[in-house]
């Protein structure tokens, strides 16, 4: 799925002496460096530092929100550097794009974007350390090698540790990026072996790590009352009543606009602890004007969606061949309507941010996935220059795309402008968090498929309905024209209708894909059943058709408009998961196997779920098998497996129980009792994973691992019970 992230710009490296001695290697963005040079400013970059004590400090450039990137990117650097991992220390970088380039956690893009840059940063260090050792020994650098934090002179077996070489290495002439020699992947010594997440010792001992844990001298605590209906403006509030509450320092209104991703209208309550601020907030009795979402409701959306399908679509997204003729000539036509709900991200750490405003400048401690985006919004909305806003990237207690929006950062900054210079920690309650999300938008797929007598797919159509404004889909609501089986059938049509909605939406882990996989891969199962075909075999057939078509296209049209989806890579994953799961084996009555695959974020995932359904309609996912291709290198196998297991269970949880509903323009669900995240007893017994290694550069996996598990579960439910799930969350009493 296209995710809007531009490809990484070509980085180059700088080498210098670190403050206090030692070697320092920096990855620089060309444009930025040139600008700095033109101003005559020397930017002392600090990306890799090696001290005389042999400690290698590597900056973690991107936000950490549980995806493990704080460990994984430094592993890449350390491997090419031939560092001793036990001597590596990782420091979280601040948000400084001039030094670190784009710093963002989104789109499963950190590994693919940084793969070469991180390797070069490490490899350059190794080359300089080897050069320094060769000079010390007066030998040819080619006769030296490096391993585990030492340079070794092959012929004599002499060794020098990095700490002893750091100062000399810093004086070696820099190497042009083109001349940096990267390792042969077979020589990787750190990557490919499981490494414990770097912060885990602090996590298990309860050390302050998260945004919510930030404590500063003189800090005050804020709670912020927002309109229940998104973007509505404050009409009135009893500020005096709240201010009279013991322990309250101040209460004031914040003027905001109707755009929920910037600063919204509300009332801030400042107190000497957060609980007191919350208690005082209850006395505000705030009243709100009608906002942009007034009167909107889930029930009304459903009625409008049902009506829309009976009318002409507003958008034509793709048409191949002659679908109508295909349906006419088909032996059998299958039609089905699928629906998925709005969802909330529900990071377990509620949104929060700490900010201080002093002498016209901000210092901000933000658990965010997009720190510089937040900085730019703060600058624009509050009239402070971006360079006067220092942003610390603080570990996030979950991201899932929620923290790509920085509404809470702008709120904290706006509040900090009114606390007389005192740092202020804004914390949202769970209820605030669930009521003010950028939700995964709901949607409707209205499918029609034609099959011939052999069960072969001959025509396919979807009238997709989702939400937006002015005829355009809102964020996370669109559908790509490449949804499979787009390339696997000659007669294919995708049309869409956009319904007006003011419900704020945004990307949630595998945006679009997390919903579309459910609809398409469930319907393909229906097509298989209708044609008397095995659901896995039909998928193999479709992928084979797509692969043949792709091969033909690439021969005739080297600039094919199709995205770089390679059906053969997926085919390999489907065949692998078939073998892993023992597809086709006998299972007990009331139990079934379901399969699905999905391509997103450049990752290929095929998954099988074994599930059981009781007579009362109780669903249990027992086991899951995952075969996936994300390229030729898994950086940290432990972290990667953890992501995949978590994504699979997250997906199962969404399917089993989660929905966000809207009534009168506001969210109905308030807390976890109404938004039942999956719990341990519902988790499967095992999630078995095998990587299908292909000769492609490594890509991300935190997102693409999620989408296929939902249809695989629904297809397993069909196999177990004969009940077809066409609405999420799963409710078998309704089928």
């Amino acid at each position: 799925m296209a995710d809007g992230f531009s490809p990484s710009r070509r980085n180059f490296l700088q080498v210098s002496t670190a403050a206090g001695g030692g070697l320092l290697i920096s990855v620089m963005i060309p444009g930025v460096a040139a600008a700095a040079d033109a101003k005559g400013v020397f930017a002392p970059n600090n990306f890799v530092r090696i001290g005389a004590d042999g400690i290698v400090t590597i900056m973690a450039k991107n936000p950490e929100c549980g995806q493990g990137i704080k460990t994984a990117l430094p592993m890449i650097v350390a491997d090419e550097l031939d560092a001793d991992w036990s001597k590596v220390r990782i420091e979280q970088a601040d948000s400084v794009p001039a030094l670190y380039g784009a710093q963002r956690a989104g789109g499963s893009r950190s590994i693919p974007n940084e793969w070469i840059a991180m390797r070069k940063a490490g490899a350059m260090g190794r080359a300089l350390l080897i050069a320094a050792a060769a000079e010390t020994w007066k030998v040819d650098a080619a006769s030296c090698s490096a391993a585990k934090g030492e340079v070794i002179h092959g012929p004599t077996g002499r060794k020098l540790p990095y700490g002893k070489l750091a100062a000399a290495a810093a004086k070696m002439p820099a190497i042009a990026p083109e001349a940096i020699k990267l390792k042969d992947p077979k020589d990787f010594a750190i990557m490919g072996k499981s490494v414990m997440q770097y912060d885990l010792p602090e996590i298990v001992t309860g050390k302050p790590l998260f945004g919510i844990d930030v404590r500063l001298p003189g800090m005050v605590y804020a709670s912020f009352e927002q309109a229940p209906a998104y973007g509505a403006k404050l009409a009135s509030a009893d500020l005096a009543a709240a201010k009279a509450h013991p322990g309250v320092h101040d209460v004031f209104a914040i003027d905001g606009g109707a755009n929920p991703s910037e600063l919204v209208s509300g009332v801030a309550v400042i107190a000497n602890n957060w609980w007191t601020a919350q208690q005082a907030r209850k006395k505000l009795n705030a009243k709100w004007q009608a906002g942009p979402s007034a009167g909107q409701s889930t029930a009304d959306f459903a009625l409008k969606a049902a009506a829309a399908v009976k009318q002409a679509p507003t958008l034509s997204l793709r048409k191949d061949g002659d679908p109508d003729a295909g349906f006419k000539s088909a032996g059998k036509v299958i039609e089905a309507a699928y629906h998925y709900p709005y969802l909330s991200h529900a990071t377990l750490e509620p949104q929060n941010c700490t900010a201080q405003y002093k002498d016209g400048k901000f210092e901000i401690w933000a658990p965010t996935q997009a720190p510089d985006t937040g900085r730019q919004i703060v600058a624009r909305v509050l009239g402070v220059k971006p360079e006067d806003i220092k942003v610390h990237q603080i570990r996030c207690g979950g991201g899932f795309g929620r923290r790509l929006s920085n509404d809470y950062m702008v709120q904290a900054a706006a509040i900090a402008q009114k606390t007389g210079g005192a740092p202020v920690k804004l914390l949202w309650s769970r209820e605030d968090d669930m009521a003010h999300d950028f939700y995964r938008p709901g949607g409707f797929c209205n499918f029609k498929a034609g099959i011939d007598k052999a069960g072969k797919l001959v025509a396919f159509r979807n009238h997709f309905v989702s939400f937006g404004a002015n005829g355009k889909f809102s964020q996370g609501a669109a559908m790509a024209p490449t949804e499979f089986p787009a390339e696997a059938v000659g007669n294919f049509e995708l049309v869409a209708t956009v319904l007006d909605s003011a419900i704020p939406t945004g990307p949630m882990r595998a945006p679009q894909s997390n919903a579309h996989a459910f609809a398409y891969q469930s319907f393909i199962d229906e097509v298989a059943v209708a044609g008397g075909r095995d659901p896995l075999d039909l998928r193999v057939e479709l992928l084979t058709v797509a692969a043949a078509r792709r091969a033909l296209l690439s021969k005739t049209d080297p600039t094919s408009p199709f995205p770089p989806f390679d059906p053969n890579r997926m085919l390999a994953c489907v065949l692998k998961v078939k073998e892993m799961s023992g597809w086709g084996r006998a299972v007990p009555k009331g139990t079934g196997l379901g399969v699905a695959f999905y391509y997103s974020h450049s990752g290929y995932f095929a998954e099988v779920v074994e599930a059981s359904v009781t007579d009362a309609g109780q669903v249990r996912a027992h086991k899951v098998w995952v075969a996936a291709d994300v390229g030729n290198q898994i950086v940290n196998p432990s972290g990667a497996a953890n992501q995949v297991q978590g994504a699979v269970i997250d997906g199962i949880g969404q399917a089993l129980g989660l929905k966000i509903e809207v009534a009168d323009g506001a969210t109905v669900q308030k807390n976890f009792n109404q938004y039942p995240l999956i719990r341990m007893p519902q988790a499967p017994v095992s999630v078995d994973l095998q990587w299908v290694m292909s000769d492609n550069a490594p890509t991300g996996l935190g997102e693409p691992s999620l989408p296929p598990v939902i249809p695989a579960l629904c297809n397993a439910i069909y196999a177990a019970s004969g009940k077809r799930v066409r609405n999420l969350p799963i409710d078998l009493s309704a089928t």
Partner: protein
Amino acid sequence: MAYNLKINGKSVSVDAPAEMPLLWALRDVLGLVGTKYGCGVAQCGACTVHIDGKPVRSCQKTVGSVGAASISTVEALAENPVGKKLQQAWMNLDVAQCGYCQAGQLMSAAALLTATPKPSDEQIDAAMAGNLCRCATYLRIRAAIKQAAGLTTAMKEQANG
């Protein structure tokens, strides 16, 4: 008003209203931020502490109701032999993703293994059902509890990734 609470083996004076939940006294008044806020309504378990050895949701226990009971938080978990084993197992199996819930998970697990040193799979699931993990690291939490209880070997669990 001021209360004398016994926290992690020490007597601590807390100046807070009687009805303030223990969670906020720990976090905002005493600066013991290892105990986490997730929901405020005893749904997520992130705020789990031990009171006289029993797992308690500190968002539901008021400062005024603690009395002379002994409170133990994640910051003192390593002083408890069961807690120490659990922390080690958590690291051996690289359990966490974002890590936000893990203090509460560990506190619930420590209470489980103290009461039931060799729990069955069902007992583990039941004891941990009140602790949400949004990253869904449940498989590794289960495995780590079993490892800490001596029910599996480190080698076997590592093989499962």
